[in-house]
């Protein structure tokens, strides 16, 4: 009897959808799930950057430049963390028997008289969340600073990851920069995939002379060196000063898409060429379906999963390219912020000074690596999930 019941229940399983199977295969990929979780966490935090950030990211704190990360100077009173006020001391160096100040290097000491507890949901600077909701409650901040004079307040600050040259809070900059770095890449992917799919699709679907013509154009685009080309073009754009930040953002998006679409259109063309002659496409054609209908209802759904995976795997590449561009000073610029642009401090003058005395300015690099790593894991898992035959998950593409 018992056996019988289990047998029927086994047969009475609901039919599982393709989506469910994909989800199941995805969750089996542990690193991919972790990567996805990290990305989700990052995106949530960066979406509410103004709320999470303790300070406005562009506001300089001129009295406290180059503060080392203060999370290393948290003290614990039971479970409640507190920090002391800061005392800025100019660092000196002995050179030929004379004591000289080291420009730009400061030692910060705890001012033991002033002790401030760290609290959650503390009122602070005003901000506009997502550009519309006004607020002044920050996720964390120092409490009990209300009675201080404005002079004292200058040295009672909490900079979790330190400050830069002008005393801007690095943590807040990283949060806002992450929003742009991680927001720009999907835009680029969207644009270059739209163009690439369109061009490649028509090339593959129409075939013949059009195909040859489009392929020649694609070839020319692929014969141009990617990085050198975008560096050159943004070098030209950099001469346009007083460009509105949004224009700069979108010009970077356009630049990166310019090099992204060509290889993609190649692959899409190949898929179209293969699917064009498939039985189901021929059946649709025999039924009198229009070209548009065949493209969008027959062929596109078949390469959609491929496109999703390719997009996820292309995003890390775009993030790296944007970081390189911004690092060299030709990508995102003030007043916008990106992780690569934060590393721009290590370009040119002051390189070795920063390396020796301000290594915390390298922290944005850690975020770049983590997000790229997470996206790679995610893309790998998605590829395995979408393609049941690709069990080796070895080489890319």
């Amino acid at each position, binding site marked *: 009897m018992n056996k019988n019941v289990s047998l029927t229940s086994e047969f009475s399983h609901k039919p599982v959808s393709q989506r469910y199977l994909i989800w199941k295969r995805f969750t089996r990929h542990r690193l991919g799930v972790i990567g996805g979780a990290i990305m989700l966490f990052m995106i949530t935090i960066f979406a509410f950057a103004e709320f999470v950030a303790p300070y406005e990211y562009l506001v300089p704190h001129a009295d406290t430049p180059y503060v080392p990360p203060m999370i290393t100077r948290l003290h614990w009173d039971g479970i409640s963390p507190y920090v002391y006020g800061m005392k800025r001391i100019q660092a000196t160096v002995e050179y030929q028997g004379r004591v000289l100040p080291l420009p730009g290097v400061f030692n910060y000491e705890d001012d033991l008289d002033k002790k401030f507890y760290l609290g959650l949901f503390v009122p602070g600077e005003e901000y506009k969340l997502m550009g519309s909701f006004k607020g002044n409650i920050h996720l964390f901040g120092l409490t009990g600073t209300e009675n201080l004079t404005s002079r004292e307040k200058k040295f009672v600050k909490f900079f979790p990851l330190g400050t830069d040259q002008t005393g801007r809070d690095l943590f807040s900059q990283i949060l806002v920069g992450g929003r742009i770095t991680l927001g720009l890449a999907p835009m680029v992917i969207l644009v270059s995939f739209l163009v690439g799919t369109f061009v490649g699709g028509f090339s593959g679907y129409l075939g013949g002379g059009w195909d040859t013509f489009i392929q020649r154009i694609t070839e020319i685009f692929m014969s*141009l*060196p990617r*990085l050198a080309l975008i560096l050159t073009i943004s*070098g*030209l754009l950099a001469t346009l000063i007083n460009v509105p930040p949004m224009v700069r953002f979108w010009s970077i998006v356009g630049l990166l898409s310019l090099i992204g679409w060509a290889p993609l259109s190649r692959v899409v063309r190949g898929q179209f060429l293969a699917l064009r002659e498939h039985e189901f496409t021929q059946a649709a054609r025999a039924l009198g379906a229009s070209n548009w209908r065949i493209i969008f209802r027959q062929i596109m759904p078949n390469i959609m999963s491929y496109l999703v995976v390719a997009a996820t795997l292309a995003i890390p590449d775009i993030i790296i390219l944007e970081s390189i561009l911004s690092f*060299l000073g030709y990508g995102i610029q003030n007043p916008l912020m990106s992780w690569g642009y934060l590393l721009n401090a290590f370009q040119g003058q002051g390189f070795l000074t920063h390396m020796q005395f301000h290594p915390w300015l390298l922290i944005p*690099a850690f975020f770049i690596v983590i997000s790229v*790593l997470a996206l790679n894991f995610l893309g790998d898992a998605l590829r395995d999930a979408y393609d049941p035959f690709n069990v080796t998950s070895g*080489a890319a593409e």
Partner: protein
Amino acid sequence: MLSFITRRLLYMLPILFIVSFVIFLLMWMQPGDVVDSMCGLACPPNLREAMRENFGLNDPFLIQYGKWAYGVFFSPTLNTNFPFLHFHEPDFGFSPTRSMPALQALLGENRWVWTILLVLSAIVVSWLIAIPIGVYSATHKYSLADNTFSFLGFIGISMPNFILGLIFIWLIVGVFKLGLHDDFFAIGGILNTEYVGEPLSWEVVLNFLWHFGPPVLILAGASTAIVIRYMRSNMLDVLEMAYVKTARAKGLKERIVVYKHALRNAINPLVSMLGFWIPVMMEGALVIAIVFNLPQLETAFFQAIITRDNMIVMSGLFVFSLILMFGNLISDILLAMTDPKIRYE
């Protein structure tokens, strides 16, 4: 084979022409010009006009392009001497900021040697590291070492070159403070200044390795990770093949099966990737050269972008796309040579 290569080379020519046109168009469209950067804002109008005339900036676009392309494509001239059509050294124009021919400014001072050396040695290093690891990972599939390598590979892929370079310099300068106590361990450039022009000695060689080794290793880093993945999956595919099973069934030692039968076939696809690898490495070398301040053509190119020296930027773009196309060509040739299924008649 020869006809295949000739055909591909001839095919490259029209593409090169169009690429040169695109490059020139790009430069021509930019706002402002080299006179602005040389003469500045307070430039007297007559001087500006004279300079513009001197650099040929007042000509119509097509004439400017024609002049440039004529020089780039070896300035062919016809005359009565055999073989009637004569070619000259390529002339990429005159760099106003460096006051020398643009190609010399880009490639001179042995810059091209360092670039080639960096890229090739990085490729060799990455293959030397990656192929044994790939073979080991494939033969010990899902072992602890395999999983570790694939995880490290993920990190290697996710680590941009310039970040690796920055972290390396931070370790040397910030953490170990090597350069602080010993001038031998200075960072940047290809040699310490005191060794430049010295006769070859152990000290000079060691110092050169100190300067040049880290960029090579860092450039090799990311590609090592990719080559490991390719090698592993190729090897896994090959190990499933019937002839490998046959070899095993014959009772051959596992060593011989893996290294004599499987490895040779698994390497083939990688060899054809070599040509494709060169442009990828060039891209990495561009960033590495800037971070480590190596005297390479990439640094000259980047410097030209900063100083807005169009002539050098144009020749740089042209040289880079030439390298890219040659990379693709090499890749096609190697593929045709290693894969008997591809016909190249």
